[in-house]
């Protein structure tokens, strides 16, 4: 599974992207966040304010309950500000 980070989420995690292989019990976005948070202090800091973090699965906005699995591209980022 490929995980991407953007903006201050990327700055806190310390990398822009990484390949991860979470255990099978990680089934959705919320589960992935909990599992990633334990990987490093940087990950923990990025997801500490989980309400400020948005997600996308395979380049579509995704809610906490959206399923994730091997082969997916999952991204985490702050609320978007285009225009």
């Amino acid at each position, binding site marked *: 599974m490929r995980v*991407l980070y953007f*903006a201050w989420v990327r700055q806190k995690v310390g990398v822009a992207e990484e390949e991860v292989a979470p255990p099978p019990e990680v089934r959705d*976005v919320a589960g992935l966040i909990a599992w990633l948070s334990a990987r490093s202090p940087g990950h923990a800091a990025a997801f500490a304010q989980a309400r400020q*973090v948005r997600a996308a699965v395979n380049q579509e906005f995704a*809610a906490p309950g959206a399923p994730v699995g091997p082969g997916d591209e999952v991204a985490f980022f702050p*609320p*978007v*500000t285009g225009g």
Partner: protein
Amino acid sequence: MSGAVVPTVRVQEVPFDLAAESAALTQGRVDVGGLASFVGLCRADDGLAALVLEHYPGMTERAITAIAEQACARWPLTGCTVIHRHGRLEPGAPIVLVLTASSHRAAALESCAFLIDWLKTRAPFWKREEFAGGAERWVEAKAEDDAAAARWGEAEAARRGDAEAARRGGAT
């Protein structure tokens, strides 16, 4: 989708050319009654030295295309172009261009306002402000922008099958 009109969407670092993009939607045509455009520019508020726009290559283009296709389905447009820049932009620099063409002026004007309101709240971009003194700050999403986007009827869009709008919301 209404079929014919395929929006032009580009996410790029280089500036865009308003005249060339306008001409592309009107030249050689006699069915365009109105061409509306909006150009968003970088302001020098509070001593801003530069705005650095980060995007999500792939998703950003997809999200903007989905929004532009929604506009083409909702209004009788003859053409639609959205160009959004990324990278480091200094005060005065143009950031985003929305162009909509239609036989009828109201369709062009409304869809142009719709697109810029949605880009503000839905397009995957993040802005870092760099100030003269060296300070940096990530721009936060604004409640007023959400309100502006909401007036276009998020509920209606969801009902009409806009899956992305229906799935909108925080990750947690």
